[in-house]
């Protein structure tokens, strides 16, 4: 039971934290304005030299394997609403880790997205 709970938390938190780290990397690099292939390769090179990229990739890998472990022991209908919560964790992470201003309007949108994603994935299951 404890292992399952840890895996759930890893899916939700490590996955979102990984993406937040990638967002931090892109913020460190600064706004990309040149979209030519050569410039984009330069952006990729700069991203790989930022430590947040590697932390993010590590966390996303961890979340992926945790999801596989959870799916092995729990039903999809139980896992999906929990993973949909990652949108709420993402908004919270954006506010705390990236100092974004998450207004009540944005929270309302995030909540609806959480509900909608759960319905789409559960509807597929129940189809």
């Amino acid at each position, binding site marked *: 039971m404890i292992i399952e709970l840890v895996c759930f938390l890893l899916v939700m938190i490590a996955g979102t934290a990984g993406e937040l780290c990638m967002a931090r990397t892109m913020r460190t690099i600064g706004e990309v304005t040149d979209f030519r292939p050569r410039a984009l390769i330069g952006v990729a090179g700069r991203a790989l030299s930022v430590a947040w990229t590697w932390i993010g990739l590590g966390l996303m890998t961890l979340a992926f394997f945790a999801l596989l472990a959870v799916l092995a022991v729990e039903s999809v209908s139980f896992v999906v609403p929990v993973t949909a919560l990652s949108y709420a964790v993402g908004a919270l992470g954006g506010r705390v880790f990236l100092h974004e201003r998450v207004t009540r309007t944005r929270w309302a949108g995030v909540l609806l*997205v959480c509900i909608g994603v759960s319905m789409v*994935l559960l509807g597929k299951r129940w189809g």
Partner: protein
Amino acid sequence: MGRMKSPDPLQFKTYTLILFIVIFGPLGNLLLGKAMKGLGAPTAWTPSELARIVTFVLRSEIIWLGIGSLIVFFVAYSLVLSWADYSYVQPASAFAYGTAALLGHFVLGETVSMVQWAGIIVICLGVFIVGRTPPRTTERN
């Protein structure tokens, strides 16, 4: 008579890249899924069977198209985060669930249940509300 409001360049490029995200992410997954179904389940995990799978993967045009789509998705997702908030991009890109259902329905002929259609409408509503907030709320480099 009021003049038409010119589009904000920041919003325009944000919307464009989010459009790329919601199209190319599900499209890549669909192409990979379609190609792998053509391969069929592996009969055994022997070296010769694995070699057959690798050869199939490397020679499949659909798989390369899928990989290309997912690269476009990843590049678009990374680029948009260089100027837009994560708390804006993440929920907005959830519309990809709707694209996946639409592609499944119209391309693969899959059945989409009423609950799924209702979920897509709720996601659209959520994305619309998030889209009413400014894409960037912090100072950038």
